[in-house]
């Protein structure tokens, strides 16, 4: 993974010192909350209903076991002994005290971590594919572009007071596991017919109140122009993005109101002026960053790996876990293993300090001391020898982390909702928990197969309900919680916004409704057909009929 050099280190340390000063000025009253707000937000510190919340950046989701141990330490020392992995591959503490935050940031900086630009109207932590560097379908390792973008966007003097927050995602594989089409900017790295490396540039995707799929504004951009092109997009957005209405301030609205062609025209015009400036990436820098992401020294291993195959037939529990939680690897004899943070009945994405320590130890033992956070709020060990998978699984079972539900109906993405969030209009975590309990039978889950259920507690859509195969949006109607269902959303390379099926369901009936959808699918699916493929084939009508049929 990327390691700081003296310059990165200095920048992060200076930021800690700067924030210490800002907190002191806030505590002394020199800064009002209104003035402190943009400053704390640039350091990932939110003010929630009952306390502050600190969001720590995990750049493109990659962290070392040392960093994981540190996250656990901080959770014990300054928080309530646990923390939360987010859908943006970040990490959150829910109960830090303001006066402790400079020390927390110092503890983070000591292990090359920070909370810079994890909130506020700036360019946020760049996100990517959790299988970067190991996925068999990958053509370009997206972490290199991510790191380049991270550095360029950090403390950017021109783009730190944008109309609204700004999210960039990068993918370099055939399958899109980074949801690039629902980001402000999505970059797909590939090689063109002339053998040159570059990016398809997509702009204006997003979720929230007005979900949109990003439009391609440039089909191919040479790698060396990455930063000049990004700078051109950002400048157009910074100048012309709406600032009169917070709900219309994202770049998707600008692209939509202006039209993708007109927007692209402005960007190209601006870029003409920028592309041959010092923004052009020196090859030496690309190579320097690349060197941090060289493949590790893999062992030569022949497939099949007998010990692994044997255990798989012997132990049903292990086999079930392998089926959902083990992802193929570029290198023969290796696999990537997913650690589910979605135990049945738990809070998706939460991890206790003890679990974090256990996971870090397992990463040291079996995966070169490195971890990834997924946008589905799970974790990945990306370098596991197949011969070690059984031992790893046993370790996970011991730490209560072996739920074999990756990609299944209980692997739910859910926002905090009414239990924690002051903007919420309905509870979301309890719905996730009830769905998980309803489908707790692991054989049933496996029979249903791949199915993403995403739940948000209000129209801000932090639970990504627009792109869930089944999306659930919690609303409030006449003082009652009510839940709207959308079907057919997806965040992959066929990204689509889910379609609303009809009137909302009550808190009491929403789980039944989900079950009706699932049963309908089971009834009409063809052999080996995933839920989303059945839905694509049949359309939503059969599901609507089942949901709204007169019970008489």
């Amino acid at each position: 993974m990327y390691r700081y050099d003296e310059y990165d280190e200095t920048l992060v340390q200076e930021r800690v010192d700067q924030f210490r000063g800002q907190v002191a000025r806030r505590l002394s009253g020199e800064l009002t909350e209104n003035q402190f707000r943009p400053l704390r937000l640039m350091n990932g510190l939110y003010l929630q209903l009952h306390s502050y919340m600190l969001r720590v950046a995990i750049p493109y989701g990659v962290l070392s076991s040392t960093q994981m141990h540190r996250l656990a330490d901080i959770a014990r020392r300054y928080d309530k002994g646990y923390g939360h992995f987010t859908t943006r591959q970040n990490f959150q503490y829910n109960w830090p005290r303001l006066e402790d935050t400079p020390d927390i940031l110092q503890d983070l900086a000591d292990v090359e971590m920070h909370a810079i630009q994890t909130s506020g109207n700036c360019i946020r932590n760049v996100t990517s594919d959790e299988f970067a560097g190991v996925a068999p379908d990958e053509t370009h390792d997206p972490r290199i572009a991510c790191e380049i973008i991270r550095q360029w966007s950090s403390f950017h003097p021109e783009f730190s007071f944008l109309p609204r927050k700004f999210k960039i995602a990068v993918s370099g594989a055939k399958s899109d596991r980074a949801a690039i089409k629902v980001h402000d900017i999505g970059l797909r790295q590939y090689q063109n017919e002339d053998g040159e490396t570059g990016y398809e540039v997509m702009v204006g995707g997003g979720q929230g109140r007005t979900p949109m799929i990003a439009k391609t504004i440039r089909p191919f951009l040479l790698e060396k122009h990455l930063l000049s092109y990004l700078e051109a997009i950002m400048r157009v957005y910074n100048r012309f993005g709406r600032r009169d209405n917070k709900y219309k301030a994202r770049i998707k609205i600008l692209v939509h109101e202006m039209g993708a062609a007109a927007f692209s025209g402005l960007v190209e015009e601006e870029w003409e002026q920028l592309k041959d400036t010092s923004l052009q990436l020196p090859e030496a820098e690309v190579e320097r960053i690349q060197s941090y992401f060289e493949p590790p020294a893999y062992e030569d291993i022949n497939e099949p790996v007998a010990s692994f195959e044997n255990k798989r037939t012997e132990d049903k529990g292990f086999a079930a876990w392998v089926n959902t939680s083990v992802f193929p690897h570029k290198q023969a004899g290796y696999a990537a293993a997913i650690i589910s943070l979605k135990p049945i009945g738990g809070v998706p994405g939460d991890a206790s300090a003890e679990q974090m320590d256990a996971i870090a130890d397992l990463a040291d033992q079996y995966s070169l001391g490195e971890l990834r956070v997924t946008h589905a709020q799970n974790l990945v060990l990306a370098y596991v020898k197949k011969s070690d998978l059984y031992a790893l699984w046993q370790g996970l079972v011991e730490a209560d982390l072996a739920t074999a539900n990756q990609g299944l109906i209980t692997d739910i993405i859910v926002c905090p909702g009414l239990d924690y969030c002051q903007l919420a209009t309905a509870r979301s975590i309890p719905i996730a928990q009830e769905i998980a309990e309803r489908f707790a039978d692991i054989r049933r889950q496996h029979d249903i197969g791949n199915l993403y259920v995403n739940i948000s507690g209000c129209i801000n859509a932090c639970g990504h309900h627009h792109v869930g195969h089944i999306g659930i949006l919690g609303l409030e109607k006449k003082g009652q919680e009510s839940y709207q269902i959308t079907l057919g959303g997806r965040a992959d390379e066929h990204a689509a916004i889910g379609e609303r099926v009809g009137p909302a369901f009550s808190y009491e009936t929403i789980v039944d409704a989900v079950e009706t959808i699932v049963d309908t699918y089971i009834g009409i699916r063809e052999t080996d057909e995933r839920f989303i493929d059945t839905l694509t084939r049949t359309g939503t009508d059969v599901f609507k009929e089942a949901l709204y049929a007169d019970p008489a």
Partner: protein
Amino acid sequence: MPILRNGAVIEDKWVLLDEADEPQAGTPLVVPSEIWRASRDRYLKWYGPLGIRLSPADEPSAIAHDFGRFELIEIDFPVFGDGRGFSIARLLRERYDYQGELRAVGDILRDQFLFLDRCGFDTLAVRQDQVGAWKEALSELSTPYQAATDKRTTVLSHRHPAKAAE
């Protein structure tokens, strides 16, 4: 408001045009951009130093041909969260090669001093209580990652000195 240049308070000779008042000939006059657009010919002939105050929605290219006439361009920050002024400043300096004084006015905070400096502002109209903050504010980040209008050495040129020397 005190005006800072390189951290030192300087004397402010400029007067912002108020149409109700007939300014005295020779007064260093700052004309708000909307008045400039409506009465350009009149103020082009102003006998005395001339400046203009841009709002963040102004298009710099529309007045670029007059830049030679201005000794001062002010860019207004109506609220500190409105970052359009940073882009306009860079455009004035880097695209239109404006060489005169560039001043940030309005709701600016010490925590923006460094970014303002990096984007090409050379004077700032600051709150009285933040007059002394300049030095510290500018030292909060020693080597930036990315190039901007200023000539600070970037991380990139430290890492690849040969490249930068070319």
